[in-house]
């Protein structure tokens, strides 16, 4: 489309019209900022919900819960490298692996230690894909065969539980606030 305007006339045209051009832009900006402010308010509210939830959780649950919740939304199957990164973050937070695992996981750590295999970091525990060929994969309890599961599986289970606790607490916070 052509406007049949001489090039020299363009700046003159702009000078004659710059007031409404800039003010229309200002109106637009003012409304966009209102929408953005409403979004920021929601984000801040969510953050304060998360902080309120985290206060009642253990250190491991409050660290691992949000970490795993976020990662599990991004991957259907979480790659080993990502598990290792999460583990490294928990290690940096100074959370003890041996004290946090559930009894079955703790027992595997002890059995490995008996074989002079000392696993003390979350990163190692999450990344190992076997039990180093030193542990029985099956045990018999009261005549029934039980699969013990690998160390990585027990370690990951701690994350699943942490995520569930984190979400439950968040839901509880939402419900309480919904009644306000």
């Amino acid at each position, binding site marked *: 489309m052509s406007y049949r305007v001489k090039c020299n006339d363009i700046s003159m045209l702009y000078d004659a019209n710059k007031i409404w051009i800039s*003010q229309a832009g200002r109106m637009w900006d003012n409304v966009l900022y*209102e929408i953005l402010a409403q979004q920021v308010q929601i984000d801040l509210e969510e953050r304060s919900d998360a902080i309120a939830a985290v206060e009642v959780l253990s250190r491991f649950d409050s660290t691992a819960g949000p970490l795993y919740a976020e990662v599990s939304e991004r991957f259907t199957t979480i790659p080993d490298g990502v598990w290792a990164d999460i583990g490294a973050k928990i290690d940096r937070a100074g959370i003890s692996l041996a004290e946090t695992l559930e009894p079955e996981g703790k027992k595997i750590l002890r059995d490995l230690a008996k074989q002079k295999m000392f696993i003390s970091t979350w990163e190692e525990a999450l990344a190992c894909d076997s039990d180093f060929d030193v542990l029985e994969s099956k045990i018999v309890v009261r005549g029934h065969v039980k699969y013990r599961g690998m160390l990585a599986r027990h370690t990951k289970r701690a994350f699943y539980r942490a995520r569930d606790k984190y979400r439950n607490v968040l839901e509880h916070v939402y419900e309480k606030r919904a009644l306000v």
Partner: protein
Amino acid sequence: MRWSDLPHHRLSSEIAQTVAYRFPQEAHCEFQLRELTARLPELREEDHSEYVRLVSAEINRELRICRDTYRRFLATLNSKSRTAKWEVALNFAVAPRASERLQQEICAYLRDTKVKPTIVEFFLADNAGVLVPFGEPGVKTPKEPSIEDGYLFLRAQLGIPESKKAVQERIIHRRGTIR
């Protein structure tokens, strides 16, 4: 519950009623806006600036009333996350209304300023790349433009926000484009 199943008619009329209600001390704003509207064609910068301030404040007031009305209604539905409900209200009620109100108010502003539709289109439609010197043969005369066409060109070029996500993208990329 689906968004389309909500009682939008009832909520819209509730919003309209609240928007229409004014405190006595706000009356002077309406009067001032009427006076400023009449003076827009004189193109005095302070008048335009004040006019835009008042109109933007009106739009934002309406958007907040819309937000509060939907939030209040959604809160009674169930006890699920209230921030999730706020997101829904922002995405599906407030942002589309912002888009619609901006279109109405910018078109009204340009019409009241008595800007020619050709000029609106010339500046807002981002067609500088196809400008040709006056009198060049073979150039077709464009169809008679309107302010709405100019605004719709602008909307197509810049993507006026229909959703919160579009708003966020626009706010990052758009600054400086229109001015």
